[in-house]
């Protein structure tokens, strides 16, 4: 197992290096110049030339890239062109907030989605099943920004139960977590239902029932455990996605996370900030995938990574 982890972590290095190259080249070919963003609406050629020189933007591309990689190797993500703050600090400040939001959304999705899926599978065609189907349709069809605004209108503007947006405690977390988690709730509910239907029809479930096991033990310990693999897959993928890209949710709910940071950086062509966050988020994604794979082994003893 530990050999597997080490191998995966080593493999992550070329992956991240590839990400670095692609991100660097994409920014180079994309139109838009960081210096243009720095100088604002009114400028002059000399200032622009001077800033370009100051930021070493006129160096040959391989030199710029080498310079950047050398910094990374020393653990230095550089400073933002625009704000002059260290990128590392910006990320450290914002990522925990994104983690909090993504975590809450996943928790919500796991609790609601899996419960709904299990209950649906126990009585296919029953009212819970049909309700679950409705929830799944809505959750998958409604875009997150629309759901987000509706939630704000209902719970903040009309009912005054929760604050409309901003960062703070659980009261601020509830709406964005729900908006973000909607899609996962829907997917998990459907995924859990079909996986459960498969395993509930399997021989070992019949055996368990024949042994006289209580229904909850049959469903919970035998059927659900065997249905876990696809559930973990969905959880892992969604969690990775939420950690790296809950941009819309963060924007609508004024959540000061990493998604908005990246969007701002892109709008201002803040190259070090974009590259630094892309690299960091890729590392996060690789890590989540690794954890997902390890969770497979936990869930299913037949999966081994010897």
């Amino acid at each position, binding site marked *: 197992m530990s050999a597997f982890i080490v191998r995966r972590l080593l493999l992550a290095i070329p992956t991240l290096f590839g990400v670095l190259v692609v991100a660097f080249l994409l920014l180079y070919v*994309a*139109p*838009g*110049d960081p*210096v*243009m963003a*720095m*100088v*604002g*609406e*009114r*400028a*002059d050629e*000399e*200032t*622009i030339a*001077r*800033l370009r020189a*100051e*930021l070493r933007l006129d160096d040959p591309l391989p030199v710029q890239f080498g310079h950047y990689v050398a910094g990374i190797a020393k653990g230095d993500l550089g400073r933002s062109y625009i*704000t*002059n*703050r260290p990128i590392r600090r*910006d990320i450290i*400040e*914002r990522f*925990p907030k994104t983690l*909090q939001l993504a*975590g*809450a959304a*996943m*928790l919500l999705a*796991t609790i609601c989605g899996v419960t709904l899926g299990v209950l649906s599978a126990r009585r296919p065609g029953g009212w819970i099943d049909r309700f679950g189907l409705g929830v799944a349709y809505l959750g998958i069809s409604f875009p997150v920004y629309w759901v987000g*605004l509706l939630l*704000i*209108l209902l719970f*903040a*503007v009309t009912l*005054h139960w929760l*604050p*409309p*947006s*901003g960062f*703070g*405690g*659980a009261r601020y*977390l509830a709406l964005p977590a729900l908006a973000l988690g909607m899609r996962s709730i829907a997917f998990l509910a459907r995924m859990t239902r079909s996986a459960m239907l498969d395993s509930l029809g399997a021989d070992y479930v019949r055996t368990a029932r024949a042994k006289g096991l209580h229904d909850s033990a049959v469903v919970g310990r035998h059927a659900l455990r065997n249905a876990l693999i696809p559930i973990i897959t969905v959880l892992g993928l969604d969690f990775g996605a939420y950690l790296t890209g809950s941009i819309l949710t*963060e*924007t*609508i709910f*004024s959540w*000061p*996370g990493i998604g*908005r940071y990246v969007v*701002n950086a892109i*709008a201002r062509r803040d190259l070090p900030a974009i590259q630094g966050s892309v690299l960091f988020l890729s590392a996060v994604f690789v890590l989540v995938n690794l954890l997902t794979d390890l*969770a497979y082994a*936990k*869930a299913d*003893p037949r999966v081994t990574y010897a």
Partner: protein
Amino acid sequence: MRRSIAPLVLALGLACGGGGGGTDRRTLVDSRDNYDPRSLDPALSTDVPTGRAVGYLFDGLTRFTPDARVEPGLATSWDVSPDGATNTFHLRRGVTFTDGTPFVARQVLASWQRVLDPKVRGGRGWPLYPVRGAKEFADGKATSIAGLSAPNDSTVVVTLKEPFAIFPKLLAMPVASIAPESVPANFGERPVGTGPWRLIEWKHDDYLLFAPNRSYWGGAPKADSLKARIIAEPSTAVAEFQSGTVDVLQLPQSEIRDWEEDSERRKLLASTPSLELVYVAINTTRGPLADVRVRQALNYAIDRSIIVRNLIAGRGELASGVIPSSLPGAEKTRVGYQFDTLRARQLLREAGHPNGIDLELWTSTNPIYVRVAETLQAYLQLSGIRVKVVQRESAAAREAARKGKTDLFIKDWYADYPDAENFLYPLLHSANKGVGGNVSYYSNPQFDSLVSAARREPDEAKRVAMYTAADRIAFRDAPMIFLWFYSELYAIQPWIRGFVPPVIFNGQPWTTVTTTAAAHQPAR
């Protein structure tokens, strides 16, 4: 591995939050910033959120009132030499920074030097370029700024390259604010100024919290604190306002009609005269657009009043020149180009394009401008002008226009200071082609000499007359499709007293604004 499956446990900081935004109603809450300020260092002030916050924390030698008059700030008065090139500023005495350091003339010199210092990477030196030697210093060709001196602690003498009568107006811009003589590396996060407010905390992408500077020379702010929230999504800002959690809202265009038609909500609205010009820059060097008749045809081909009424809820005053009617120099009697497709077609024929022309109209992805672009496209089609709309993300679109790669480009221009010069010179003077702001690449020697002469002219009446003459030329030459001056609409909570929407973005320091906390029930 025998135990049951470990659930996906996440350490969530779900500390139950009781307070937070909006419950402490002695705090004034602003919702206008939609992205995080770049820094709180005046030398880095190139965008609106930064400029606004810098305006709370710092003072310039002059400052704007909410209705865009220029009044004394850290300078109580100034004299101009007979040749108009030397400005002597007499500084306010007894002013201290919030860390207790007394304000003296040296700090003025040091602050402006920092703005121009290449190493600071501010990128916005132009308000100080009129100072003799400033550009040379910024370009690294001089080690000090020749035109700046401080004969004593309360006097600053500024020698300009050439007379520039409106120079004191430029000093009210955030970038010209006065900071301490030497600043630490993290000054952008830990600013120390002489302004009406001091920074309590800055939660990036979340909010900035300010407390009154009790010893402010201009009278300490009356409220307990001021919170500038950063709300990226306009619809969210509206919801915050409706929940009573923010006090002041800049109403998005999409909301205006609903609010104006609602008898309750319309009572909360307040409007400002506009110093924002929305126009379509016509690149006067590209193909058929070099012909003035073609450019006039473009102006005749569209019905602006319909567009203003239907796309921006009537909030635009039709432009017939680049000077807003609220500024001296605007020729108010001039009638703009009227919608007349026959005239447009005739002008095109005269210019040798009986079969029409093909153009590209560039726009950012701003939804309002995209809609304007599509509407213009339909109108222009009626006169035989076939337009392809090119949408690009705003930085990319702006860069293309600056490099002269766009035929037509929809853009706006906000005044930095209230003077016709701030429209005529950057937008249309040939010295500013491209990155300077003249993306029409317009060049007319007669216009240039009038604007240059106006900049040097000390007599206000003569100066204004030259502005008017220059604007008349620009109108005739049509280096742009003159669209409208947009007038901002604000919504202000009924419990807020004393908030006057500012004409210039940094013209409202909130010092006299109060909140009557008992007047409402905040959302809990």
